[in-house]
């Protein structure tokens, strides 16, 4: 059963002659444990798709269903609770709060959801440990490198019992080594059952996904169907993949 489903989702801004169709009739579904990349050029609608999938924005028409529940049938409070408990966001520019330490940034969503400060702190430390960042827990964002900041952002997105991870150009301006670390972390979250959607224009980032969906002018135009890794890629190497 799909964990996230978008059914004929459209989104328009403005009206009349200035109306812009950011998304048109997008159908997309993903299972728990899967990593889907949405690839397209700037202005293709991929970021809008992500914000609608994460209930940060309402579609003009169509339906978003998360874990069997249609967002349109939820109250504002229910949606806010869903966002706090189940959905983690990773943005290109990290969006960490400068006045909070790494662990405070990570544990903040749990505290906002009513968990005690102590329990939230422990969960935050555990999430940072998972990403090999426990020794940076007390550092403020401006004391961290770009790669570390993005890892903190990922820790914040997966802390607690999140089951949907939505990432918008998660490697941002990071170099390719740090981008790979970021994608390995997102993949590790998927292996634990998280459903992750990454929107990007970067084919190397997208190639970590199980499925790559191509979007152009607000429409899904194509998607990859990756065959099993052929041994022809590697002459004599015993191929132990696929891992998923």
């Amino acid at each position, binding site marked *: 059963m799909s964990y996230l489903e978008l059914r004929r989702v459209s989104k328009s801004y403005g009206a009349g002659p200035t109306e812009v169709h950011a998304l048109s009739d997008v159908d997309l579904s993903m299972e728990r444990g899967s990593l889907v990349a949405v690839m397209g050029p700037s202005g293709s609608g991929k970021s809008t798709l992500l914000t609608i999938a994460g209930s940060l924005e309402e579609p003009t028409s169509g339906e978003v269903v998360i874990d069997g529940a249609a967002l349109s049938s939820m109250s504002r409070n229910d949606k806010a609770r869903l966002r706090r408990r189940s959905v983690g966001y990773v943005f290109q520019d990290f969006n960490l709060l400068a006045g909070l330490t790494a662990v405070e940034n990570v544990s903040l969503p749990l505290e906002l959801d009513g968990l005690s400060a102590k329990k939230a702190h422990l969960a935050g430390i555990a999430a940072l440990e998972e990403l090999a960042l426990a020794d940076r827990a007390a550092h403020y964002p401006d004391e961290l490198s770009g790669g570390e900041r993005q890892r903190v952002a990922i820790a914040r997105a997966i802390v607690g019992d999140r089951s949907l991870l939505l990432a918008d150009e998660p490697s941002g301006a990071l170099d390719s080594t740090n981008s790979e670390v970021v994608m390995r972390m997102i993949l590790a979250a998927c292996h634990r059952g998280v459903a992750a959607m990454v929107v990007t*224009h970067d084919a*190397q980032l997208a190639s970590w996904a199980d499925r790559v969906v191509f979007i152009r002018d607000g429409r899904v135009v194509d998607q*990859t169907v990756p065959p099993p890794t052929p041994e022809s890629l590697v002459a004599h190497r015993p191929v132990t993949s696929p891992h998923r």
Partner: protein
Amino acid sequence: MSVRHALLALLSEGPKYGLQLRQEFEEGTGEVWPLNVGQVYTTLQRLERDELIESDDRGEEAGSQKVFHITAAGRKELDTWLCTPPDMTEPPRDELVIKVLAALRVPGVSVHDVIQVHRRYLVELMQQWTRLKEDEADFDLTFALVVDAELFRLDSVVRWLDTADGRLKRAALEPPSTKPGPLIRRRLVARR
């Protein structure tokens, strides 16, 4: 790829047997490029003919197998090759570029659709290569370098397709250019 220089590089570490060279060549290229025994011995014969390597028999120790050594001339040739950039001045006659250019001329064909077919194929290939590096434990340094090289090569083609897609989209919205076509060719020729 220069098998000749790759073998010289392996021999720069010390004397080696032919079969050993084949095995080390494949390991050293992440086992992505297979090399048959015939290729190894033909190349070694040519290297010996050109006095870039020498051989001797190890007699009792290793049966009748020949051991190969690099000569001073071979070492000099290797050093020169390592620091000589490959000739990349001429654009390669790339089949994909030609297909996209040809699609522009064919009535009733959407160049965007043609581009997308190739983009999808390349991204699928990249997914396969990326899967090979998912398991870090099975991902040694030489293999990592080869996989990275392949991913960057495929990525550069995807980027070109993306740029071509965007350029064509913009061109469709703008009036046709009045600049003469041969200008670019003249500039390219002038730069050579």
